[in-house]
């Protein structure tokens, strides 16, 4: 099982490092978001500098010390979706080029084929997330730039919760889009559906805006959005849990359920696509 998995991962890796445009664009996008949106939409500037108003802002931002800190964590959710968007394209090209057929004709297990896609595509989601977090933290050290300021002492448990949230979020969205890759035969159909889902997923989350101002029905959806759940885990650990009705592990649990459900869906669609007809 190990040798075939290793071979499939190596192939994915070779294809990836040989497509410099893909790498550069993929890693540059989150950095641009962070620089442009993060620095420009500094909502904090809209609020008068007196301490009461600033405290009100911090409450609206659910404890984050400034909008950039709030936003940077939300970027993790946004980057998870936008990087995972492409997760299913490789499978579709492999179908069209007959490469998947060739792979199926070898004794490799169907689950190994699925696992290799999930692992590699998942890593391509996790990588830009860590770049975003790293940059946002670095910005805080540069005078004149807004940056991500962590106000809490994370501790080992907190750190683990944050890391698990990031990986589980990556698994959830990679599974979702990978599932469409196994489902569809054409890239056009794939992107039609992916584009349809992309924005609703993002905008029903609290990644970019505190959702206190939205209508109740939307707040209910937002509460269960996997991005919201992941972001809540991180924000509680970074900025404190005073504004959250549940401790971080509750949100983490919800996120794990999402990932499990989406993972099972992807696995089912993959085994359907890889089955002998």
């Amino acid at each position, binding site marked *: 099982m190990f040798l075939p998995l290793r071979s499939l991962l190596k*192939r994915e890796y*070779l294809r990836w490092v040989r497509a410099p445009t893909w790498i550069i664009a993929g890693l540059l996008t989150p950095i641009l978001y962070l620089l442009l949106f993060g620095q420009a939409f500094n909502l904090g500037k809209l609020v008068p500098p007196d301490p009461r108003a600033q405290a009100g802002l911090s409450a609206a931002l659910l404890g984050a010390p400034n909008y950039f800190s709030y936003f940077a964590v939300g970027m993790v959710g946004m980057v998870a979706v936008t990087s995972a968007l492409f997760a299913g394209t490789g499978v579709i090209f492999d179908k069209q080029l007959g490469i998947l*057929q060739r792979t199926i*004709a070898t004794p490799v297990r169907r689950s190994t084929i699925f696992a290799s896609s999930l692992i590699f595509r998942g890593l391509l989601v996790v990588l830009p997330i860590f770049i975003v977090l790293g940059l946002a933290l670095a910005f805080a050290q540069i005078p004149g730039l807004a940056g991500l300021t962590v106000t809490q002492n994370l501790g080992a448990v907190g750190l683990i919760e944050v890391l698990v949230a990031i990986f589980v979020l990556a698994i959830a969205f990679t599974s979702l889009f990978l599932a469409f890759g196994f489902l569809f035969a054409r890239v056009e159909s794939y992107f039609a559906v992916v584009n349809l889902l992309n924005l609703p997923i993002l905008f029903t989350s609290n990644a970019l805006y505190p959702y206190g101002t939205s209508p109740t029905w939307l707040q209910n959806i937002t509460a269960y959005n996997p991005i919201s759940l992941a972001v809540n885990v991180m924000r509680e650990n970074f900025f404190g849990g005073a504004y959250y009705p549940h401790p971080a592990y509750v949100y983490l649990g919800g996120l794990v359920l999402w990932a499990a459900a989406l993972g099972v869906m992807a696995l089912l669609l993959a085994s359907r696509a890889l089955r*002998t007809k």
Partner: protein
Amino acid sequence: MNSSDAIQTENLVKTFPGGVEAVRDVSLSVREGEIYGFLGPNGAGKTTTVSMLTTLLRPTRGRASVAGLDVVEHPREVRQEIGLVFQDSTADGELTGRENMELSGGLFGMTPAECRPRIAELLKRMDLVDAADRRVKGYSGGMKRRLELAVAMVHTPKILFLDEPTIGLDPQGRAGFWRYIQQLRQEQRVTIFMTTHYLDEVENLCDRIAIIDHGQIIATGTNDSLKERVGGDVVELRVPANAADISATLTSVPGVGEVSRDGTLYHVRCPRAEGVVSLLVRACDASGVAVEGVSVERPSLDRVFLALTGKAYREEGYDDGRASQASVFRGRGRGGR
């Protein structure tokens, strides 16, 4: 029915959803070490048959065993024993030839150390040493086909399936490819099951041939036995218009069947033209008739096929009597039926 058969099928049937009966009833057996040719026009059911034998499609009915293993009950074990060259190239263009071979070895559970000498050997055999570390997208058509063969052989399969492996190659490339196949067979003791459109292509290569049409095998046999059914080769000798009639002399040449004269042309039928041509020319010389031109017409699949199915076609209303050989195959492409 023999347990040492490399491939054996019994009444194999594949009906696709929507009711297309791609394979209707195929029973065949391929002996170990044999090169078996599977001939048929477009849409005959060749690829579908190969797909069932290679566990990529599930038979609707019937049984098939490959390397002594049932394809439905032991698909993974079957896959371990076979190599596959598809009708379309399936190597990854972004990877080098060597990387494609390593990938294949890994998928068959070979360690990099096990792969390395095997790959080096195959690259040498296939004349791909210089191109081994270039990306496959830059390969020529012939190189790609050779690479497919090399990739299929990395894990030392017992049985090699080739589905129209020379498609898209020029005649030279085709001849070259067949040399590689012959070499492989000699050196690696592998059983080969191959499909093709061209009888001439398998003529010097295949030990036995099956002809399939409409999903049914309509003839099996050796190359010679099939050709005899349509009268074998025809040698045409062009002579001057005023030359004396030497039909009797030509008929007496060993290996010659029927002789007919049509103006300045003699049509000489013989099971195999090789060796006979020079005897015929010498016979003409000896009779004082100057030979102005010689041509050999080999029975094409079209002729064998028409001879075997001529009636069936007309019954199905493809053409009535005017059935030119070409039109039989045209209009019956993929999805045409």
